């Protein structure tokens, strides 16, 4: 009779991982999840666990791992503080639609609800920031719960799922099973765009004189790289990418216009205001993109393509709504679109780009942050993954770097989580061990998670950290300068010696204080086989432009103060592939 093996709950979790193709876990052990660690050696090296130094970083690392690998990311935390430390990482994954499976140990069943030592109701806490969450009270439910967790996390609009398992349930034995198909009658993420809407969209495109595509994260998630490009080239439409949409469309493509919104290119914001058709693909008309919503794209009809029905009509009323996986929708749409000559529109855009070259690095002896980021681009030519934190450096990394490698920009968009830059670089490097990973860090953000340098040194991940060290919480300082009467409060930083910090963690530390040193340290970092930290001591009070002041409309964008110099990269003249 005993052909089927009895497994412990912890072994069941592992077996589920194997069936889901999981080979990487980031986590921290503790009393409640110890059974999960106890079985790790049995499954090594099929499943590798990386010990991080704070659970928030386990979640961020798994998040970035998922972005780069295209597989679900997995993180572990113990009950109570271990689980609550995961919360920021889970929220980050939720906002950016990342398939993350967080497995937490819970106090033993008998203690649940009695304020047991290290008890936190993590399922309850994470309800608003997960796609789904479950407390598994019976060992026989573990295979089902795990299978559902991966299914939910990785299908439809991806998102994080939390599975909380009490320690005693992890230790009990039961029979493992695995179903051919997940049955979830309430889960209905699959839809196909209505052919009538597709036809209407094609018609709108044909009628349009001044169309723009705004391509979002959904294009990257569904890997519609070829399809978005086909739409742009075939119909002759310029492409704007949202922050999370960056690297969904080639950065040096003649039809590429860069980012829109709060720190977007001036020409883009004006183009959206002028446009008669906005085609939003796999994006959600976030407030950082739209500016003051009621004045967003006042002359435009909108085509909205997204997989999430709750996004359709949430912020804007589309004239055509293509609900479903954007790759599939684009394929159908591309069959119907025809090329149209829109020379006047391209001339207008061209003119706008010449008159308002939003990306200018002005001539100065000071070391400008934009110069540093542009130098990393020059040194790598974009053949690397770029991970960022949140703030000015993040915006400059979006503006002064051209992403020709698909899905090569890893950033915290929706939640805007400072500290993401360090653990996300770890996840990206684990997912792409043969690629170079550059982490462009804020000095403030770096100090939120820099304990992970110990993890990086331990595993030898050859990440290149570029700290854009302005001795300030730069973006907040900019807001204080511009919108709070220059009342500088709690934004200057008294930083440690980052080179010594690196050395203390057994990592090569380099420094550049002057422009002339930049190229050399970048080169040295790229030659170095291991992890490197470069402290770029940049100008303290450089502001990030263009900027749409909070509450303003896109056409009220403040452009770069006019500098007489040439832009960092003159946009190539727009040309459209012959249809």
């Amino acid at each position, binding site marked *: 009779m005993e052909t089927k093996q009895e497994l412990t709950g912890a072994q069941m979790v592992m077996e589920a991982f194997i069936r889901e193709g999981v080979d990487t876990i980031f986590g921290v052990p503790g009393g409640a999840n110890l059974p999960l660690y106890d079985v790790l050696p049995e499954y090594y090296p099929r499943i590798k666990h990386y010990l991080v130094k704070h659970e928030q970083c386990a979640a961020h690392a798994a998040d970035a791992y*998922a972005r780069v*690998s*295209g*597989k*679900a990311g997995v993180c572990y935390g113990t009950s109570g503080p271990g689980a609550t430390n995961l919360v920021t990482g889970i929220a980050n994954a939720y906002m950016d639609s990342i*398939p993350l499976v967080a497995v937490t140990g819970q106090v033993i069943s008998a203690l649940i609800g009695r304020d047991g030592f290290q008890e936190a109701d993590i*399922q*309850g806490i994470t*309800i*608003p920031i997960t*796609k*789904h*969450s*479950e*407390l598994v009270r019976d060992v026989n439910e573990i295979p089902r719960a795990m299978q*559902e967790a991966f*299914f*939910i*996390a*990785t*299908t439809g609009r*991806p998102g994080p799922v939390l599975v909380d398992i009490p320690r005693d349930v992890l230790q009990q034995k039961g029979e493992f099973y695995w179903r051919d198909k997940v049955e*979830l*009658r*309430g*889960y*209905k*993420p*699959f839809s196909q765009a209505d052919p009538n809407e597709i036809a209407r969209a094609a018609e709108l495109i044909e009628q349009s004189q001044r169309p723009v595509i705004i391509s979002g994260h959904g294009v*990257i*998630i*569904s*890997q519609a*790289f*070829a399809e978005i*490009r086909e739409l742009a080239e075939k119909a002759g439409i310029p492409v704007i990418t949202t922050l999370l949409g960056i690297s969904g469309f*080639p950065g040096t493509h003649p039809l590429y216009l860069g980012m829109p919104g709060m720190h977007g290119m001036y020409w883009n914001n004006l183009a959206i205001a002028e446009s008669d058709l906005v085609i939003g693909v796999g994006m959600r008309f976030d407030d950082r993109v739209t500016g003051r919503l009621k004045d967003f794209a006042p002359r435009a009809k909108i085509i909205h393509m997204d997989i*999430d*029905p*709750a996004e359709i*009509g*949430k912020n804007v009323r589309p004239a055509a709504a293509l609900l479903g*996986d954007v*790759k*599939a929708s684009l394929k159908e749409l591309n069959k119907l679109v025809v090329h149209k000559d829109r020379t006047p529109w391209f001339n207008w855009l061209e003119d706008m780009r010449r008159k308002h070259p939003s990306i200018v690095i002005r001539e100065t002896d000071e070391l400008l942050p934009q110069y540093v980021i542009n130098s990393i681009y020059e040194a790598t030519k974009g053949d690397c993954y770029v991970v960022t934190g949140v703030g000015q450096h993040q915006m400059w990394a979006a503006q002064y770097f051209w992403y020709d490698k*698909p*899905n090569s920009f890893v950033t915290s968009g929706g939640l805007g989580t400072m500290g993401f830059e360090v653990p996300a670089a770890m996840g990206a490097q684990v997912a792409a061990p043969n690629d170079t990973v550059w982490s462009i860090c804020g000095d403030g953000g770096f100090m939120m998670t820099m304990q992970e340098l110990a993890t990086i040194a331990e595993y030898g991940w050859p990440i290149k950290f570029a700290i854009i060290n302005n001795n300030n919480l730069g973006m907040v300082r900019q807001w204080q300068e511009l919108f709070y009467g220059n009342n500088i409060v709690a934004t200057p930083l008294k930083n440690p010696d980052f080179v010594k910090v690196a050395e203390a963690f057994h990592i090569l530390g380099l420094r550049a204080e002057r422009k002339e040193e930049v190229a050399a340290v970048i080169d040295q970092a790229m030659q170095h086989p291991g992890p490197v930290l470069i402290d770029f001591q940049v100008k303290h009070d450089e502001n990030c432009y263009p900027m749409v002041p909070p509450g303003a409309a896109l056409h009220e964008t403040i452009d770069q103060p006019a500098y007489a110099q040439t832009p960092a990269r003159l946009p190539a003249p727009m040309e459209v592939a012959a249809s």
Partner: protein
Amino acid sequence: MSDGTSGIRPHTIIALVEDRPGVLNRIASKWRQRGFNIESLAVGHSEKPGLSRMTFVVDADTNAEQVVKQLDKLVDVVDIRDISHEDIVAREMALIKIRTDRGSRSQIIDIAELFHADVLDVEPDSIIIEATGDEQKINALVNLLKDYEIIELVRTGRVAMLRGPAVSHPHPEEEDQQYERYPGPHTW
């Protein structure tokens, strides 16, 4: 009841949900996040095993549609729909405990009869009556009884369904869908 408050109308929303712990919490969390007040909520087993049916009345502006879509995305919500503008029957039940004396008891029983309400319990100095109907009827009854001392009032909140043979939550036959998973490596 907030009929007539400017811009805000009560919506009647019915949902078919998994009968599992945490479902109510998840649903309530979405309403709370958007600042909608749940005026009443009734839950019980449905005709389908393992599924409960809920009727919500929420004070909401026109944005209720967005929250309904959000709720529909919850894994535990099998189906949900706003039936405020449909042809529905809606009822609620109230239990009302009133202090009585020899003089008032028969008057209260008369009122109850007028409203087709049942008398459930009679004690020397109290009486419990049960009334079923739409909110206006219950409101009218409660109003009349205010002449006496209402010791306790409990109302179930609205339960509702579509008129006629239509099923409120048609259960589409499960088609075999192509499940697009979060994909692997990347190329242009």
